[in-house]
């Protein structure tokens, strides 16, 4: 099976500091795959580099096509979605306007409609004319994910969606991601904690110091106390 997203020997730099030291991993069609690791190991940098926001050195193939070197908006048009760590809601625009800007072209409907979003997360329907900036952290997280879905991506990369959320909200994010995957969208989930990652992922990667240090299944990671102790637990 040739994977949907294949990253091979990826390096990235911020100025002179070398952050990614040859990252290699893959995400298959419709899979939920997690990328785990402690603070500062380079998880966000990895997905920013895939998305073209940080200059890539190495190979990134999406559906067999080399995308390293393309502009972020071109990469988005190929079907890659990105939900950043800082959420980046457009604060002055309403919930509806935020969702509309998720569509890559006006009125182009893909696998998701605005009604689907309201069904996935009913709170958005109640707040549809509210400025995005006044939503709670959890609502903003849901809105960012939904906004990216409106662009009909085949794979979304979600950076720490549970950070700073209450335990119930974390569960809801997990449920939302699962339902998205059921519709055939592959997910690359970046997390620091194991909570939802172990529950929903098919496979996991653990990063340390700009490299992949473990690759396996949730059961495999559960069984491997050594990796958890060295690379995950604080």
């Amino acid at each position, binding site marked *: 099976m040739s994977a949907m997203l294949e990253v091979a020997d990826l390096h990235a730099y911020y100025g002179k500091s070398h952050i990614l030291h040859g990252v290699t991993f893959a995400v298959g069609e419709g899979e939920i795959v997690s990328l785990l690791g402690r603070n500062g190991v380079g998880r966000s940098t990895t997905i920013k580099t895939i998305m073209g926001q940080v200059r890539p050195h190495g190979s990134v193939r999406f559906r067999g096509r080399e995308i390293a070197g393309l*502009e972020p*908006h071109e990469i*988005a048009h190929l079907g890659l979605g990105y939900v950043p760590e800082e959420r*980046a809601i*457009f604060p002055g625009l309403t919930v509806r306007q935020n969702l509309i800007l*998720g569509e890559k072209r006006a009125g182009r409907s893909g696998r998701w409609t605005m009604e689907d979003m309201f069904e996935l997360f009913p709170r958005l329907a109640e707040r549809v004319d509210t400025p995005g900036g006044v939503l709670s952290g959890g609502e903003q997280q849901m809105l960012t994910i939904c906004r990216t879905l409106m662009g009909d991506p085949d794979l979304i990369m979600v950076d720490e969606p549970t950070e700073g959320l209450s335990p119930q909200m974390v569960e809801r994010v997990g449920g939302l991601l699962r339902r998205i995957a059921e519709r055939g969208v592959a997910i690359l989930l970046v997390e620091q904690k194991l909570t939802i990652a172990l529950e929903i992922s098919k496979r996991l990667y653990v990063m340390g110091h700009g490299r992949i240090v473990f690759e396996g299944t949730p059961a495999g990671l559960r069984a491997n106390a050594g990796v958890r102790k060295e690379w995950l637990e604080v």
Partner: protein
Amino acid sequence: MELVVFSLLNGVLYGLLLFMLSSGLTLIFSMMGVLNFAHASLFMLGAYLAYQIGRYTGFWPGLVLAPLIVGLLGAAIERWGLRTVHRFGHVAELLFTFGLALLIEEVVQLIWGRAPVPYTVPSSLDFAAFTLFGTTYPAYKVFMVLISIGMFGLLGLVLTKTRIGLIIQAALTHPDMVAALGHNVPRVFMLVFGVGSALAGLAGVIGGFALVTSPTMARTLGPIVFVVIVVGGLGSLTGAFVASLLIGIVQTFAVAIDFSLIDLLARFGVTVTRADTFYDLWRIKLAQLAPVLPYFMLVLMLIMRPRGLMGTRET
């Protein structure tokens, strides 16, 4: 009373003209983080182009063509100039726009000479619009006000009601996110730069015949536009609007009021004579201070509230 009403009218007019310049400048600044030193030069170019086109076709075609040409020039400057220079950082961009301003000034002098050109009020607008307190108010000034307000209304609608307007608003604060959603942000930048330039050009077309169309007009007005966007708060359109009107009105009133501190003190029965210390200071008329007032407001604002009236960005 007459003085107050007419100064207010003129002040608002000057303020609207300033806003036509500062709105483009502040939009460009908040998008790209670049203070475009050549902005006032594009304003000057608008006036000269309208003058030149007007010589062949009369005023009205120039009203449309000159801003259009300046807008296209602005878009080209962004596409083939700034976008390349951008890679070398903000200082390089600043120097680039600075050089561009000097270049445009030299080119204008080369083509049209150092002396002002006779760009005058078109005859179709050269009549009295209304009479108030026995004084007439010229039609071309009313025309300037209408054009400005119409243009701002149109831009406001585009910015808040259309999809491209929403994309621009979002790109003002989160360009990376907007690009990640699949929108061509560099093209949006080019568009904003083009529209901002066209606005500056339009200000030149309608400001050119009210002011003097000469190669120094960019250098005269440029600094005041910077004052406006700093006082208003970098990146804030509302702030730029308030600051434009404020500075427009304050400066117009200052020019109109032939008054010094001596006159003021005299009202309270205090006489200042030549023998008093600082006599020369007391003697300065407010009108003489008018050119200094904007810079005074700038300094005051930077000391008391560095973000400006409505700025969100810490500077």
